[in-house]
């Protein structure tokens, strides 16, 4: 009985068959695992408007505070002239949460020393873009902050 092992075309076929099966097996394992590792999209809070739990008179001139804007922090600032302004508090450099510095009258990020003026514009340090500005409405006892200022 002649063994077919030495038949090159048959050997090539068997090797190709084995190779593709191994490849298909790996793919069948790796695809679900890689999809599993990617987190599903979280329900991005669509809230374009929030009513703050802060009363307008509690925000003194030349101070600022952090508030929740959906799942992200925002910063509410009352300028020395008494005007209320709100921005995203997420630094445009590397995502730290900024704070208001009364000593320079600017918004400042502690992580890499980034400075923003009271229009949210990046004026010093590494931040590449201005902070996103929000519209602020003080309605009587309430402060309402909304996107798209």
């Amino acid at each position, binding site marked *: 009985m002649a063994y077919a092992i030495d038949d090159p075309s048959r050997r090539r076929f068997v090797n190709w068959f084995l190779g593709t099966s191994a490849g298909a097996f790996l793919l069948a394992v790796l695809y679900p695992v890689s999809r599993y590792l990617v987190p599903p999209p979280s329900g991005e809070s669509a809230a374009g408007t929030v009513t703050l739990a802060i009363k307008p008179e509690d925000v003194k001139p030349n101070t600022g505070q952090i508030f929740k804007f959906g799942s992200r922090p925002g910063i509410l600032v009352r300028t020395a002239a008494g005007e209320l302004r709100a921005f995203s508090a997420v630094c445009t450099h590397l995502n730290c*949460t900024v704070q208001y510095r009364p000593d320079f009258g600017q918004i400042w990020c502690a992580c890499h020393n980034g400075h923003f003026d009271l229009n949210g514009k990046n004026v010093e340090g*590494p931040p590449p873009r201005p902070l996103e500005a929000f519209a602020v409405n003080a309605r009587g006892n309430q402060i309402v902050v909304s996107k798209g200022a």
Partner: protein
Amino acid sequence: MEPVETHGAVWRWLDRRIGLADLEYLARKKQVPLHRHTIWYYFGGMTLFLFAIQVATGILLLFYYRPSAEEAYESVQFLMAEVEFGWLIRSIHAWAANMMIFTLFVHMFSVLLLGVYRPPREITWFSGVALMGLAMGFGFTGYLLPWNELAYFATKVGTEITGAVPLVGSFLRRLLRGGDEVTGATLTRFYGIHVAVLPLLTAALVGLHLFLVQKHGMSVPPSVERGGGPLRTMPFVPNFLLRDMVGWLAALAGLAALAAFLPAELGRKADPFVSAPIGIKPEWYFMFMFQTLKYLPARILGIDGEVVGVLGFGLGGLFLLLIPVLDRRTARGEPSRLFFWIGIALIVYMLVLTYLGYTASTTK
């Protein structure tokens, strides 16, 4: 020679089943070269010893730690305040981590400056650089686990930096964070990476690294070899091993003292709706990169500064990895002043930027 005669019945019983004589032969064969740079041989073993401490204390910490945003901080607080010697175990884990990174750096730079990465030890060097990456990964993921304020912002910044990688950045950032933001999902992910993925990879790479060190023997620096003359050696077992153990005991005593007098802090619980605290800084071994990012302007040649920074560090790491391939002179056994001075420049850069990171503060 009849080695069987020199041992007891238990030894002989085991030898017939698992081949102890072969292991004994290997242990006796290993020699440590003696020359003016022999001191640097101690740092690899020291790093391995500290890693063993990390495994032991890490397992102990697992018995109390709870990996969720709601419970992590409280579980560490409980461990520190209520569990007997909880403060000791956690403080030793924190201090030994720092010490391990330090001895790893010393080990790596001694290998770099002495040029002992030359053929055939390239893969030993590659696995060593990869182990350094894993050690930094351990530091980065472990830092977040107590879920305190400093760790929260350090992780925000660290994962945001991966977002600056061209093309795949935002995908990588989401993958690392387990979502778009640093949340409890990030904590769970980092926990899995810290206690399962990294230990597994490290065990495999340490195995390879040690196997290669055994296979090629301890490397003699080219400068010593060029000096000529007969090379003296010392048996690894027991002469060198006993000296190693003196160092390990001293390190353990130092760790206990550090843990007792400067226990690991916990700080305040992470709160996503609080500003980043003033004076925020990363672990010291990330400081030179952190400080570099501070100095980079917002835009360089039309590209965001942090993208330039990340690409720079990425290329720097790649260069470090490929040194055995790039340094042709050392490979031929000739002196290589260029790569020696590159090594010195790297050390000086890291030292200066780290120093500035702790002292130069433009805004308090």
